[in-house]
């Protein structure tokens, strides 16, 4: 396996012939998130020739590149021998990693998401409450008091993987997934919580629904949430839900 360990103790490894992964650790930690966010911003601000895009995850950052463009940017002298696009990009990344400062604090944007909990909007609220021997009201207050960090967006367009759920309401996935979950559904899976931006099959416990659109294909960026955002859930009534939904529909 072609792997390089950098000074910053990150490991660079290939993902096929047109992407590489920079791994900063192996568990979900704020410090690792901070490093990933810092490098991502730095690479996007000063992209190397052939850079296509990058995707942050819990413990690593994947960089996609265009091999012919990477090679084209290499000096003519070197081109007489075989130039490996992976090696070219790795060495660029390595020198970036060595010069990057991760001391500074991150600026997190806070996004408030209104949620109508329970009833038809949250069919599993009662189950989650029973599972922990508490009332549905307590589940709502614990869920909406929390502050959640969006570590990554994936699975579906705009779907945030949120960390920071209280153990008091952490609940395993449903034994068999629902074949279709309505867009806007707010769910819990183990220690994670998240919002389904588009209607998809899924196995999370659904406790509420937001009228806000998380996937905005007509906008750039097309996702309401970005990795690094802090998310807060605000309980709303059924009437407020319907009012907001009508407003969203007009957009």
């Amino acid at each position, binding site marked *: *396996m*072609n792997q390089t360990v950098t000074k910053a103790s990150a490991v660079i*490894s*290939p*993902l*096929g*012939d*047109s*992407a590489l*992964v920079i791994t900063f650790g192996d568990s*979900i930690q704020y410090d690792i998130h901070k490093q990933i966010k810092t490098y*991502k911003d730095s690479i996007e601000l000063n992209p190397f020739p052939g850079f*296509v*895009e*990058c*995707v*942050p*995850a*819990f*413990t*690593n950052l*994947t960089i*996609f590149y265009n*091999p*012919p463009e990477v*090679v084209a940017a290499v000096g003519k002298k070197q081109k007489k021998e*075989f130039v*490996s*696009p*992976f090696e070219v990009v790795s060495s660029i990344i390595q020198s970036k990693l060595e010069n990057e400062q991760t001391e500074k604090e991150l600026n997190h944007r806070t996004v408030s998401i209104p949620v109508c909990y329970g009833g038809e909007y949250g069919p599993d609220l009662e189950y989650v409450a029973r599972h922990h021997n508490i009332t549905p009201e307590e589940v709502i207050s614990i869920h909406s008091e929390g502050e959640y960090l969006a570590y*990554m*967006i*994936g*699975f*579906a*367009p*705009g*779907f945030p*993987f949120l960390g920071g759920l209280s153990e008091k309401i952490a609940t395993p996935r449903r034994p068999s997934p629902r074949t279709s979950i309505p867009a806007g559904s707010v769910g819990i899976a183990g220690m994670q919580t998240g919002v389904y*931006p*588009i209607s*998809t099959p899924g196995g999370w416990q659904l406790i509420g629904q937001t009228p806000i659109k998380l*996937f905005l*294909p*007509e906008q*750039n*960026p*097309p*996702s309401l949430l*970005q*990795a690094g955002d802090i998310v807060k859930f605000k309980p709303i009534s059924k009437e407020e839900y319907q009012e907001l939904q009508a407003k969203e529909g007009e957009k």
Partner: protein
Amino acid sequence: MSIRVNKAGLLTSIQDLGRRGFQQHGVIISGAMDSYSLRIANLLVGNDEKEAGLEVTLMGPTLEIESDCLVAITGGDLTPSVNGKPVPMWKPLFIPKGSTLSFGPCKTGCRSYLSVAGGFSIDEVLNSKSTYLRGEIGGYKGRALQTDDVLPLSAPAASKPAFLSNELINGVYTSSWSVNYKEFVHFTKKPSVRVMNGSQFDLFTAESKSHFMKEPFKVSNQSDRMGYRMDGPSLQLQEKKELLSEAVSQGSVQVPPDGNPIILLADRQTTGGYPKIAQVITADLPLLAQIKPGESIYFSHILLHEAEKIYLEKEQLLQELKIAINLASTK
């Protein structure tokens, strides 16, 4: 200028080279499954290779050509015909207004590409005309084509290569030359797909690793543009391990707990949490795209540098093809 859909076929959608740059927002890339065939179809009609064309799957559509147009059909041989008479593939075709273009049985592969000079006049969503079926965006109303859809065409640029040599085949004007597609897409009975080790290759048992490289795997009927599910020897990890989700790419071979590998393709999700045993090299993705459910493939191992060499050589060949087509159509 337009093309009308008289019959939609099994799955016909508008695809270009994909929606890049939005994966960090969870937006999948989509795009042509067999990108070499789409790129060549575009070059044959004087388009930019990134232009959108029609991706036609297994049972093709019946299309009414409502204005004179220059088209090219590439990819799998789904026996295209104009007004009931077979027409050649891998070369430009001049189809007169009022003709009916249809497809028949699959002779080779399972996906054909149709490019039209000027391209389809369709708005881009997030910098791409590709149809993202599940997200219902891009392409024609975010969906596969249906009967009675009318696809508007853009006028070809005046500077684009004129159509020359005017050989008449079955009522359709065409060129005397065609592309030697075997350099880019090949059709064989027992395809072998080249793979590199995946990020979690070492987590698999020795037996699973050896089975993966030696035994045939059958493409299951549950396969689609998102991924090919494969039936073969069950692949197991040395020990059960929960992985965190991370980015995946086209050609990643994931193994879910049931042990049956899934090759992620054009409509794959941006991230995945299953261990990746292998990674199909980019140059072999078009070959994979032409394999039908029920057919079997073998995997063979190669190293990163070989994969990179093959990728760069194919791109060089495509550049040479571009020059050759330009020369052939302007002299």
